């Protein structure tokens, strides 16, 4: 269900796994169903870039209202918190910092901590169980295992999509009467557009995301890591000034074990303790911008964190450790090369003054933006304010590659609202509107 079995990597001073779903329903099937409207401060940045009319806040909120109603959005209820979400809640109360249960598309969440491998209880309202069946019922044809290789352009107009059928011999050509809508993600969209002959100095550039690094705390008492909504609680206290968000994360043993230090008997001893840990993820709204190109073995992604990003992350790690200790952790396991394997209460500051080199940390990169960014003028971006690729008619992009800035919050809700806005504009155009 994951692209390249999670082996897709961004290269810079560190190798950072870039997580993407690759299944019918996309990343909505394997993410934690978290709902965040784009914060007002980020919308203000978009408006300052001249996109206030193209991505108007009032319109986006109208779409968010509709999506939240369709997908039964609700705050993660305490009965689905399990142990680790409750620990973060208690820590936030104790430290007096802002934290809240995440709002999610998973109304009847059973707290199985298995969001990242699908949802065994079927509570998650991913696209696989909601809008895709709706679209099919209204006549949409869904073809799985079909890779779009090229959009055929003729006289500056998109007229068809060519591709191949994975696992089977055969190619397909789909003629486009009204428009070709590309929504392949910030990694695949720029590659598809480049293969199709779209030329822009910004195509594949401005690649942004939310690099995250985990920190674990070991607690006394019964184990709590295996039960609870995967990412059921977050602390947003330093979202604006510190550009970090701290999230809980419940993971299955096979993922937790890989990060534990040691080998042989010592590794096994840590595995036996794993259930008594809580993992908090530090996710930063990074300043870094990278690039995406097509490579011989998949996407060639270059991405390097800046010094400011590293400072944010180090401060975020310290903050996360403070939360873990406030929740009662006996020790924390930073997993940072150059720091001790275990830190005790009172040693949190060592994280803030830890190594500056991204290669000393373990990362994942998710929430990807910007590689076909929107701009009113073709000299500043790939798509225009009508979502159409500059200089090509009938070719529109409706995914997170059009986002002009990094969000700092989980983007699924933003992507869906922007896609709806784009669809609405296409429909208006078809019906002879503005």
């Amino acid at each position, binding site marked *: 269900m994951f692209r*390249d*079995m999670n082996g897709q990597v961004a290269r810079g001073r*560190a190798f950072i796994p870039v997580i993407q779903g690759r299944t019918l329903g996309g990343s909505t099937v394997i993410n934690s169903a978290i709902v965040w409207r784009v914060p007002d401060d980020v919308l203000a940045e978009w408006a300052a870039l001249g996109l206030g009319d193209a991505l108007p806040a009032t319109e986006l909120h109208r779409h968010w209202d509709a999506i939240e109603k369709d997908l039964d959005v609700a705050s993660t209820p305490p009965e689905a918190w399990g142990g680790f979400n409750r620990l973060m809640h208690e820590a936030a109360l104790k430290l007096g910092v802002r934290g809240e249960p995440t709002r999610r598309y998973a109304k009847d969440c059973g707290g199985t901590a298995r969001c990242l491998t699908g949802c065994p209880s079927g509570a998650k309202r991913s696209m696989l169980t909601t809008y895709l069946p709706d679209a099919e019922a209204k006549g949409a044809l869904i073809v799985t295992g079909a890779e779009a290789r090229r959009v055929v352009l003729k006289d500056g107009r998109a007229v068809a999509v060519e591709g191949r059928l994975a696992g089977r011999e055969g190619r397909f050509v789909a003629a486009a009467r009204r428009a070709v809508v590309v929504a392949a993600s910030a990694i695949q969209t720029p590659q598809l557009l480049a293969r199709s002959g779209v030329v822009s100095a910004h195509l594949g550039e401005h690649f942004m995301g939310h690099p995250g690094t985990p920190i674990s705390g070991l607690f006394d008492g019964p184990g709590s890591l295996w039960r609870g909504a995967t990412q059921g609680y977050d602390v947003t206290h330093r979202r604006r000034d510190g550009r970090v968000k701290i999230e809980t994360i419940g993971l299955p043993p096979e993922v937790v*074990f*890989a990060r534990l230090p040691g080998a*042989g*008997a010592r590794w*096994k001893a840590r595995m036996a303790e794993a*259930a008594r840990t809580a993992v908090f993820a530090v996710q930063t709204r990074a300043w870094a911008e990278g690039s995406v190109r097509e490579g011989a073995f998949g996407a060639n992604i270059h991405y390097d964190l800046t010094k400011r990003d590293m400072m944010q992350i180090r401060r975020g790690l310290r903050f996360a450790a403070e939360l873990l200790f406030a929740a009662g952790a006996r020790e924390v396991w930073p997993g940072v090369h150059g720091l001790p394997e275990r830190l005790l209460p009172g040693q949190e500051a060592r994280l803030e003054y830890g190594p500056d080199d991204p290669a000393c940390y373990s990362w994942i990169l998710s929430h990807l933006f910007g590689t076909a960014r929107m701009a009113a003028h073709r000299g500043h971006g790939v798509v225009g304010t009508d979502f159409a690729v500059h200089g090509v008619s009938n070719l529109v992009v409706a995914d997170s590659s059009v986002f002009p800035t990094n969000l700092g919050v989980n983007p699924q809700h933003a992507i869906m609202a922007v896609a709806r806005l784009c669809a609405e504009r296409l429909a208006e155009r078809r019906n002879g509107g503005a």
Partner: protein
Amino acid sequence: MNARERAVIDALLPPGGPEGLPGAFEAGFEAFEEGFRRDAPFTMRLGWRAALFVAAWISPLLIRRLPPLDNLAEEEQTEALEALGKSRFYLVRQSSLLLKAVTSFGYGSTPAVRRVVGY
């Protein structure tokens, strides 16, 4: 897996121990590994082979012993594999991470292991 590669995995997750966790091969790792070599993307398979090679031939050097790993005493094998994860060379540390990640995926998803850790 050849005998040398098996020895690496055996040193990484040996049988026995007070926690009741099985060794890698007791938990059925070999079948997982066969599937991995068959189904994983090319770059992942290449990385896995490289990680096994580094563990077998480079890790002993980090503790000033002559390779291969399976010529070392059991305690030294563990020490050598731990040294991989602490190396000052990033690529060596990454090879340790990949080695442990793939092994964990095969090991941690088995019912025998999950039962012991309460999953």
